């Protein structure tokens, strides 16, 4: 079955091509085409995953280009991580396709929307299947294009346009670093192949400084894509896109691509302690940083966006602490429960037509299905025991502790506490209490929207059991099978960590309950005590403003200078040339005035010049 894995990305590609060409004509049939084709690729992915359980890694390649001694290849590879990612991506993509049928109902550009979804899914699946860095990079950029198109789907909204541009440009900063790292690796190894890169890393043919440098450059690429600090600020803005897009791209798949890249390149990172340390520190800092911003946001999707940034930070922290399995595990569970949360949030927005949580409230009774689903997602992300998020977060904490990062461990614990707090703050504000807005017309979403959420809710609850301390670490053993560089399948940690994590998340929930549900603590209890800190967090640490006054201003000054250069020097030269030519031709046309004497003058002038030149040069003098 695995030899047919290449067919998986082709279904969404076909969907994209069909819908971009015939979408207008087919109109309302477009969603079914997209759903059918992504479902096909999900089925094949599932079969490939099952086949991978029993068979070794499958890899097929063909020579693409030969440049001198170097050979570039193109192909696909099915290893454990790839097979797992294939299923996650195709499943979430299929569910989002289905959900969008209800969410985007009535939008006249729905076929365009579905074709973009197809393009993105194709790119993401291709990214996951790539066996070498170059191919990864190509799909990496394609994924960025898909994200750009979908964020800017409501292009008539100024914010959406700006957000799309911001997302594209900020991820591009990371991509440049990734590109440099990739080229450096090629220079050192002479190949883009993952296998050969890992082989020369473990053989020690690359100097350790070079490994650190390339690993950090590649990590910067991942930082851009995964919205890690300091390139995180595009991700919350990307919420201007349609909500299913946020669920697919900016929660479950694309932003996880950065984590996936680090996981794929893990042997390179593992060879450099400094690179691992960088990853861990950036991850931990991002986790707590984004969580603190999430505490005060008032837009339901932005809260979830900062939560995503924070959770991606957790994954990075896990990878940086040599917790390969923990990182990938959390990536998997996060994909499910965050997609669920976004889809549920979309369902809420669909019902109340606002994203401001201050205008919601009391929706528990109105949205009989969405409410419990959202609660499941919230419980999962908060790390409440027995749900998936609990197990994966526990893995991360254990990995961090065992690796010896005590400070980072503390940061992670605080971030976990904040996560539980802001998620339940969100839950209580949206669903609990009394209605603060007009909720008379609120109706539950149609089945086509709730069914995908049920599937995701099921996974959000039970996906954790594939890797638990109690029932065996099946996922971890399988992932690291046959590859010692990835570390152990399961890291044994002290049992008190699990208790601490549980206590912290329950504490967060309790605090949120006290403030937002029972109201025994005033809402501005904290903010009134530290107004400046509140202001700082509310303004997202002024990161956007900081960028605006440094990077944006500098770039605009630079481009002004470049524009002046362009206008004065380049265009001046061009104008000089055109003016010269125009003048010459004007002179020519003035010469041709139809008068015999002018013609005679010109003819005689030529003759005189010829005669004089001949006399001077011909030696007649």
């Amino acid at each position, binding site marked *: 079955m695995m030899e047919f894995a290449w067919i998986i990305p082709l279904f969404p590609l076909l969907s994209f091509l069909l819908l971009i060409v015939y979408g207008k004509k087919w109109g309302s049939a477009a969603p079914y085409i997209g759903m059918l084709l992504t479902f096909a690729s999900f089925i094949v992915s599932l079969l490939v995953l099952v086949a991978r359980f029993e068979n070794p890694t499958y890899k097929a390649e063909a020579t693409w280009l030969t440049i001198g001694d170097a050979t570039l290849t193109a192909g696909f590879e099915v290893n454990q991580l790839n097979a797992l990612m294939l299923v996650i991506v195709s499943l979430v993509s299929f569910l989002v396709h289905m959900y969008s049928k209800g969410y985007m109902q009535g939008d006249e550009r729905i076929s365009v929307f579905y074709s973009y979804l197809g393009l993105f899914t194709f790119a993401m699946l291709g990214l996951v299947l790539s066996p070498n860095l170059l191919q990864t990079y190509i799909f990496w950029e394609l994924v960025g294009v898909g994200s750009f198109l979908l964020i800017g789907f409501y292009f008539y909204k100024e914010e959406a346009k700006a957000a799309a541009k911001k997302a594209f440009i900020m991820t591009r900063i990371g991509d440049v670093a990734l590109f440099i790292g990739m080229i450096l690796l090629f220079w050192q190894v002479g190949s883009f192949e993952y296998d050969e890169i890992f082989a020369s890393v473990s053989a020690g043919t690359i100097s350790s400084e070079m490994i650190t440098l390339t690993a950090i450059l590649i990590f910067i690429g991942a930082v851009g894509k995964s919205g890690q600090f300091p390139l995180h600020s595009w991700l919350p803005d990307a919420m201007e896109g349609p909500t299913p897009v946020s669920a697919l791209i900016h929660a479950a798949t694309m932003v996880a691509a950065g984590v996936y890249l680090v996981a794929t390149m893990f042997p390179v990172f593992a060879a450099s302690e400094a690179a691992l340390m960088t990853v861990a520190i950036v991850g931990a800092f991002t986790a707590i940083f984004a969580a603190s911003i999430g505490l005060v946001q008032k837009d339901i999707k932005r809260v979830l966006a900062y939560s995503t940034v924070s959770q991606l930070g957790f994954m990075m922290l896990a990878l940086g602490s040599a917790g390969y399995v923990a990182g990938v595990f959390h990536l998997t569970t996060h994909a499910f429960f965050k997609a669920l949360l976004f889809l549920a949030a979309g369902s809420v927005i669909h019902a109340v037509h606002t994203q401001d949580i201050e205008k919601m409230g009391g929706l528990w009774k109105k949205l009989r299905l969405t409410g419990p689903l959202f609660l499941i997602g919230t419980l999962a992300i908060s790390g409440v025991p027995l749900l998936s998020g609990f197990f994966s977060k526990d893995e991360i904490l254990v990995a961090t502790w065992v690796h010896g990062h005590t400070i980072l461990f503390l940061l992670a614990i605080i971030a976990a506490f904040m996560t539980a707090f802001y998620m339940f703050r969100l839950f209580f504000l949206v669903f609990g209490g009394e209605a603060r807005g007009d909720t008379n017309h609120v109706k539950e979403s149609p089945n086509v929207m709730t069914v995908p959420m049920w599937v995701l809710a099921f996974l959000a609850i039970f996906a954790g059991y594939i890797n638990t301390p109690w029932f065996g670490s099946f996922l971890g053993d399988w992932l690291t099978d046959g590859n010692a560089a990835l570390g152990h399948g399961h890291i044994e940690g002290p049992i008190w960590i699990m208790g601490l994590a549980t206590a912290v998340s329950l504490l967060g929930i309790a605090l949120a309950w006290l403030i937002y549900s029972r109201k025994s603590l005033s809402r501005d209890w904290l903010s009134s005590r530290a107004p400046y800190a509140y202001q700082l967090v509310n303004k997202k640490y002024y990161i956007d403003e900081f960028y605006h006054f440094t990077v944006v201003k500098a770039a605009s000054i630079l481009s002004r200078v470049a524009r002046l250069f362009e206008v004065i020097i380049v265009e001046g030269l061009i104008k000089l040339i055109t003016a010269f030519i125009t003048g010459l031709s004007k002179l020519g046309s003035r010469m*041709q005035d*139809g*008068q015999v*004497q002018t013609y*005679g003058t010109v003819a005689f002038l030529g003759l005189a010049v010829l005669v004089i030149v001949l006399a001077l040069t011909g030696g007649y003098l």
Partner: protein
Amino acid sequence: MSTVPISAYLTLALVLFCIGLYGALTKRNTVIVLISIELMLNAGNINLVAFSKFGMMPSIDGQVFALFAIAVAAAEVAVGLAILIAIYRNRKTVNVDEFDALKH
């Protein structure tokens, strides 16, 4: 034996030719342009006659050539003036810088 060298005749012819050329190229009046051309032809005739006396192979041929040139010049003047009259009838001017039919 003549005491005037051939170069003196040739120089005279050159000076007359240059005067005629300047007139032909700068004068506005068509009649003067025509007569300047006659002056240039005359300069050429001086050369022909001078070479018939002092040339490499002096003979009467040069004089015969000069006669032919005069005959052709006379015919040219006749036709030129006829054209001038015809143009004048249409354009009511004899200024050569107002004749720009060549442009079209």
